[in-house]
Every structure is written in C-alpha cells, then in structure tokens.
C-alpha cells in the first residue's frame, strides 16, 4: 500500500510538473498571425495595432509571397476574426490578410463599392502611421528610378532583385521623355511587337513604401523605345502608349540601364537554344 501510494504521488508530481510547462511554438506562431478588428476599425494582431491608410496610388509596401492574393505564403498570412474567437479556430473563420516581412504593414482585400470590385486596403503599424500619413498627404516626390530583374546566376535567390538607376541614367530617360516627340508612325518590328526584352521602370521614395510605375523600355533590333502608358481618369483602364524612340547618342546609356535585364534575357535564350 505504501509503495503504491509513493508511486501514485510520484506520478502526480510529474503530472503537475508537466502541466506547469506551458508554451507551444506552433500555438505561439498561430497567435502571432491571429488578429481582430477593434471598435475603431483598426486591426490588432497579437497586441500590435495596425491603422488603415488612405488610398494612395503609389503606396506599395513589400509583401513576401504576396502577388495580389493572400493565399500565396502561409508564413505571412494573418487570420482576422472576431475578438472572442480562440486561436485554434482562427484559420476556419473570419478573413485572411497578408503581413509584410518586417511586420509593419498589412494588406487586406476589401470590396470597393465605388468601383464594384475587390481592392487592396493597406494598414500600417501605429508606430509609423503618422509618418506615412503625412507623406501621403504631402504628395508623391520620388527620389529616383529602379527596376526589378531576375538574376539567373544566383541559384538561391534569383527573383525580384532591384537595380537602382544612377542620376545620369535617370536624366537620360527624362531627357528622352521631354525632348523627343512621340511617334505617330511605328516601324514594322514595333507594330508587331517583335522586341527582345522589356525593362519596367518604377520610381520610388527612399525609406518609404512608395513606388509608382513610370515607363517601359523596350529593346528592339533597331534600338531602344520608351513606352509611356496612358490611363483613363480613374486609372482603371489603359488607353494607349506614347512611344518615344531613344536617340543613338543615348543608346550606350540605355545599354547600361538595361544591362541586368539583357543578362537575364541572354541566359534565357541560351537555355532555350540548348533545348533545341
């Protein structure tokens, strides 16, 4: 009897010890990605508050694994539910939104009643809200141009690398846009879109989540052309492109600008030809 009592007491002690070991990484991760909307309409995620930003066409925070849908990468998906929903059920109810890698921004798909479709609503952390809001109110003033390219030589991380244009390169593009006339008649290769590669130029603001599409640089056999897209008033419909022929004098600069895109293009052509 004594021995049985001792064994039972030992088991009881171990049970209490085990019960006191709280914590579970998986549940902690779920908590980090579980939020709710408070009475002010802000999103609270794991105690951190995110405030909705006003609409701004050039507001574009970076989200890893997000390509216009919140279901691309589960590491950055946040489940937004009612406040009283337990964390284990957070994945089954409510809605999902995406959080940025630095956990400063959220993007949520909301129904735009005016336009009649789902659009993106951005939120930022309350700590940086005032700064971002003031910048939006002040208006867009980009610091420079850049473009994203694919670096096939980097086997581990080849997507979405950035090339920031130098001042001289920026000036070269602006010079073409301001001094060269748009083309009314296009050469056959341009009419038939027989280009080699495209470089999409974005403007950006240093240290801020602002960027905007500016122009595309098309490389044809005969040279470089800048395409400047024209949109309707609401920016919802593309109308046409204003096309500018880059002068021969600036071709060398444009070779430098588009060097990264050309490198990726050359490697793709080489691989394509090796399959043939």
């Amino acid at each position, binding site marked *: 009897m004594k021995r049985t009592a001792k064994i039972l007491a030992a*088991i009881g002690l*171990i*049970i209490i010890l*085990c*019960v*006191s*070991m*709280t*914590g*579970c*990484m998986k*549940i*902690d991760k779920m908590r980090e990605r579980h939020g709710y909307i408070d009475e002010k309409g802000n999103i609270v995620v794991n105690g951190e508050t995110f405030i909705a930003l006003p609409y701004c066409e050039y507001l574009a925070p970076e989200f890893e694994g997000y390509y216009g849908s919140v279901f691309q990468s589960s590491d950055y998906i946040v489940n937004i539910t009612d406040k*009283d*929903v*337990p*964390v*284990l*059920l957070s994945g089954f109810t409510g809605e999902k939104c995406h959080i940025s890698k630095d956990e400063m921004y959220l993007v949520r798909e909301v129904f735009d009643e005016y336009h009649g479709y789902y659009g993106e609503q951005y939120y930022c952390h309350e700590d940086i809200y005032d700064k971002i809001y003031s910048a939006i109110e002040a208006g867009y003033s980009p610091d420079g141009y850049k473009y994203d390219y694919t670096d096939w030589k980097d086997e581990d991380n080849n997507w979405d690398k950035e090339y920031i244009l130098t001042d001289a390169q920026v000036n070269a593009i602006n010079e073409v846009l301001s001094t060269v006339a748009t083309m009314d008649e296009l050469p056959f290769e341009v009419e038939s879109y027989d280009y080699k590669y495209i470089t999409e130029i974005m403007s950006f603001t240093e240290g801020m989540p602002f960027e905007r599409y500016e122009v595309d640089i098309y490389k044809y056999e005969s040279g470089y052309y800048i395409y400047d897209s024209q949109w309707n008033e609401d920016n919802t419909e593309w109308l046409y492109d204003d096309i500018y022929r880059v002068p021969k004098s600036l071709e060398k600069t444009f070779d430098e600008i588009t060097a990264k895109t050309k490198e990726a293009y050359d490697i793709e052509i080489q691989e394509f030809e090796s399959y043939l």
Partner: protein
Amino acid sequence: MVKKLFKHEFAAMGRLMLPVLCAVLGVGILTRIILFFESDTIGFNIIGGSSFLMLFVVMFAGLFLAMVFGVIRYYKNLFSTEGYLSFTLPVTPAQHLMVKSVTAVTFYIAAALAALVSLVIALSGDPLVEGVKAASYIWAHLPEEINKVHLVFFAIEFAMSMFVAVFSSFFLYYTCITIGQMAKKNRIMMAVGVYFIYYLIVQVFSTVMSVLFSVFALTPLMERVAEFIADNIYLCGHTFFIGMLLVYILIVGVEFLVCHTIIRKKLNLE
C-alpha cells in the same frame, strides 16, 4: 463471495494491466517532456512527430492489451487446469461470468482513461488550454436551431451504448471460448472457428439488410420516411441511440445465457 471473487480477479488482472497503464501514462509524460524542448528544426520535427506517433500507438496498444488480457484470463482461469480450482469454489457460474466480465470491462475503461489522461498530459499547458477554449467556443456558438439539451442526452445515450458494447465485445469472445471448450481437442482452434462463423453470419446478415435497404430506398415510402426523420430529428435520434443500447443489452443477455448454460451443463475441463 462475489466481493472476494472481485478482489482476486482485480488482483490477477491488475498484475497484467498495471504495467500497461503505467507505460501508457509514461509515454504521455515522455512526450510532454520532449515537447518542452520544442524548436523549429528538422531534427525536433522528426523527434516530436515520432513521440506523438508512439503515443498514439501506445494508447491503442493499451486498449488492445486490455481486451486480450481480459479474454486470456477468462480462458485460463475457467477452462485450463485452473478451472479445477475456479469451478470448485462455492461460487455459481453466473457469478464467475459477472465478475470476469465486469473486471475486464473495468480495466478496458481504465485503459481508455489512461489513454485520455496520457493525451492530456502530452498536450498539457498551452495546447490543452487553447483546445478547451476552442471546444467551449464551438459549443457556445452552435446554431440556434440545434437543441443543446438533446445533444447532451445523445452523448449520454451514446456513452451508455458504448459501455454496453464493450461488455458485448468481451462476451462475444467469452461465448466463442465457451463453445470451443466443448470440443475434445484443439479447443482454441474451435473457438476461433466459432468466431469466424459468427463473423460470417453477421456479414451475410449485413449484406442482406443493405440490399433490402437499397431496394426500399427506391420506393416512394423512403421519401416519406426521410421527411419524417427530418421533421422529427431529435425523436429519431433518441430512438436510434436507445435502440442501439437495447440491442447491445439483448446481445449481451443472449451471450451471457449461452455461456452460463454451457458452463452449467456442458463443462469439459481438460
């Protein structure tokens, strides 16, 4: 006399089952200790996953062994040479059957409880707390159309049916062994044979009933039956569960009678 029989029966089963129950609880404790060192590495994922797999295996092994030990105990204590002692005690065959079955079912339920406690221990702390919160939330937010009182009664009726079903399982094996012991030789093979014949009969019966039901389902009457069930879901639910309970009680009764009659009139000790 019954009390004394219980005392010795529990002692005999306990010496077999207590190590099993301790092992089940032990694996739960071990799993919790392993989870304490949780990390986001492949190594831990393998170890953690393996420990949970081992826990589930041990949980089911505990139930399986409880069933096996209960059946073996019945055979050894009544139909092997130990039967010469058991059946010359001042105890009736009905008391033997009652004590054996109740003890076996008790240890089976103990194994089930040990498995549950082991799982609770393994998930103790955050997982358990969040699990309870999730269950409470689901219960609190059930659609209004669902009557919770009926659900509670369904659960009680189902639990009672399962309790009697465990008795029925043991008594099925007891019946096979009791019929098997009537053979002159190869009694265990005979018991296995009886079990297969029973299984075959159940399968044939189930198949016939399924075919009849399929034919019935094509008739217009089925639609009316379905409508009736949909309009009286709770009544039909209670009827089903209570019916299941009564069927199991009937089965246990029949099996008990068969065992009792054979032991009283056709006992054939080696």
